[in-house]
């Protein structure tokens, strides 16, 4: 690693991450099942997928926030700034959380402590991770609130979370997360609970702060629109695995995996008044019993015998573009249109 130029070394490197939940009996929920990806310095990587695909468990695993019965399985590896996060002791990982790697969550109300003022909670980050005095920490907290665009930050800092609107709470969370100028910000559905006009403000703020602070962002969301506007590279998760990875334009222009293709065509979009939406039939399978072979085969319009038995590897499709689909080996089987034949549901 020492010979690699710094610019091309990944900031975060995840290899074969498996996080399973041993829920008693013989059933094991394999929520994350062999996930590998890198995050480079200064880039925004989008991690997209539907509920239950394992995207949030992946992000919690990076910070080792998995509690029993969940377990990061042996053989998983998470390297960050050259250190193996999974081998660190509790004290060492705590020194990284909120300092080098920060996280913001979907629901700012439940992530902020209701009995402390916003300023106290933000200042605490500086008290824990630096030798700042109480007063210095408070001043830095107020300064940080100002940087994230909170009006009258000195007054707001003395207020409690419930006194702030949803948009201001999310700004306060971002202020807390960025207090120590982290190298990596994990944003788990940062705008899902917000209205679109507020969402636009927050996305703009994140982009601006990223340029200013020079951090990397791992953006976790179910909203492909948010991905298109914010990410440079996209990972698509389905059933605990990454099924496609591509630069953002490639993903939207030339998605390879049938699941990605289905997601893109199932979403209504502005300016596109089709008579019927195309659908992905069926529902996401349960993590205790992922289907054999390709995990998407029972919902896939192209599936053939091989898909039911052989688990597909990640095939290289193009530069920085991989897809976990046997169509890469047998492209002739892709017959259009895959999801157009959306039969009436009844």
């Amino acid at each position: 690693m020492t010979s690699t130029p710094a610019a091309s070394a990944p900031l975060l490197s995840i290899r074969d991450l498996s996080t399973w939940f041993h829920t008693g009996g013989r059933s094991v929920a394999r929520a994350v099942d062999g996930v590998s990806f890198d995050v480079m310095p200064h880039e925004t990587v989008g991690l997209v997928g539907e509920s239950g695909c394992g995207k949030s468990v992946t992000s919690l695993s990076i910070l080792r926030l998995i509690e029993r019965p969940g377990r990061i399985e042996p053989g998983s590896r998470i390297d960050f700034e050259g250190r193996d996060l999974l081998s660190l002791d509790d004290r060492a990982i705590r020194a990284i959380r909120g300092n080098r790697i920060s996280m913001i969550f979907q629901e700012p109300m439940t992530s902020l402590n209701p009995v402390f003022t916003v300023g106290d909670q933000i200042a605490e980050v500086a008290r824990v991770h630096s030798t700042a005095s109480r007063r210095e920490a408070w001043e830095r907290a107020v300064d940080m609130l100002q940087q994230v665009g909170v009006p009258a930050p000195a007054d707001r800092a003395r207020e409690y979370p419930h006194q702030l609107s949803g948009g201001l709470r999310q700004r306060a969370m971002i202020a807390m997360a960025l207090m120590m100028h982290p190298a990596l910000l994990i944003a788990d559905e940062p705008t899902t609970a917000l209205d679109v006009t507020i969402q636009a403000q927050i996305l703009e703020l994140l982009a601006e702060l990223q340029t200013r602070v020079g951090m990397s962002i791992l953006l976790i969301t179910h909203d492909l629109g948010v991905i298109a506007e914010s990410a440079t590279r996209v990972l698509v998760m389905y059933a605990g695995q990454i099924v496609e990875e591509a630069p953002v334009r490639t993903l939207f222009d030339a998605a390879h995996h049938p699941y990605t293709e289905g997601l893109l065509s199932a979403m209504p979009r502005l300016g596109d008044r089709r008579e019927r939406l195309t659908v992905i039939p069926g529902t996401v399978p349960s993590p205790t019993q992922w289907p054999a072979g390709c995990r998407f085969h029972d919902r896939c319009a192209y599936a053939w015998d091989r898909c039911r038995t052989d688990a597909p590897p990640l095939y290289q499709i193009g530069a920085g573009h991989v897809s976990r689909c046997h169509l890469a080996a047998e492209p002739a089987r892709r017959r259009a249109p895959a999801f157009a034949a959306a039969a009436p549901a009844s």
Partner: protein
Amino acid sequence: MTAPNAASARSAPPNGIAPLLAVRDLVKHFPITRGVFRRRVGAVRAVDGVSLDVFPGETLALVGESGCGKTTTGRAILRLIEPSAGEIRFDGADVRALGGDALRRLRRQMQIIFQDPFSSLNPRMTVGAIVREGLTIHKLAEGEAADARVRELLDEVGLRADVASRYPHEFSGGQRQRIGIARALAVEPRFIVCDEPVSALDVSVQAQVINLLEDLQREHGLAYLFIAHDLSVVEHIADRVAVMYLGHIVELADADELYRRPIMPYTQALLSAVPVPDPTRQRHRIILSGDVPSPANPPSGCPFHPRCPHPRKDDACTRLVPPLEEKEPGHLVACIKQTPTTVSWPEQQSAGGTMQPERIIPDALG
């Protein structure tokens, strides 16, 4: 709230067809009380003078951000929440004057589908009992006939008949939403309030439920009041769209017209803020400053004026409540700065106006 709004809701009705639902100046204020004697110290003006029509077989969407009053409007129309004032006519009948049996009979024709498929189904009842309840209450079917009807309804929403003996917790969000739809359909309504019916669902399942709602509308001639915050979903499903802000309808037009040429500055900002799944598209995005004000303490004049980016905003906007007026055929907008307006320039000047309105072609969403 006053005269200008009263005749407002008629945007492009199909010629000669009477509205199925006509709402005029609907108001719902929730009292704010304080102390042990619950002294009334104010009111949350959740719905503040809403007028709209819903025609047979159409989908009128009610869109807006959280707290704009769209859900309260839907519930007040069904009298699930008692309105404070206003008139609601369903098929000619005065909904607010009805009580007891007459109201119950009317409710058979007006149903609701809720947002949260997890809390809107009784966990102790089987799916069959949930769907059957309406049949029993309205004495539509009993015994064998009711069983057959339940099977038919489940089939219609795309569920297998054998799910009738199972409980809601055994189903995914999308399937539960189908159960909720079957329950609403059981009593053969003509009008359904769909309150964010797909907001809690994943994209792939959302498309299934939207298609189902459209199929059912076509087959049964249902009229929908479709309440939603997702503008992409609304554009897909709605015939006409009403945009709400702080308890007021601020724009109402055909869906095509509203999305192509929004006139109210709020609608323009709202549409420009929707993330578009196309990374190559460079957009002119209008970023609004600040948050939606509290409906307990709404701004004077135009409810949108504190955040409005309109270049001609002036003191008249802070003093005059803009009437919802027809700016283009069938296109109703509440803004005194977008011409043509019935609020004349002298009238605006006497309210402190310094910027004369001028037609501003809304920056197309490109």
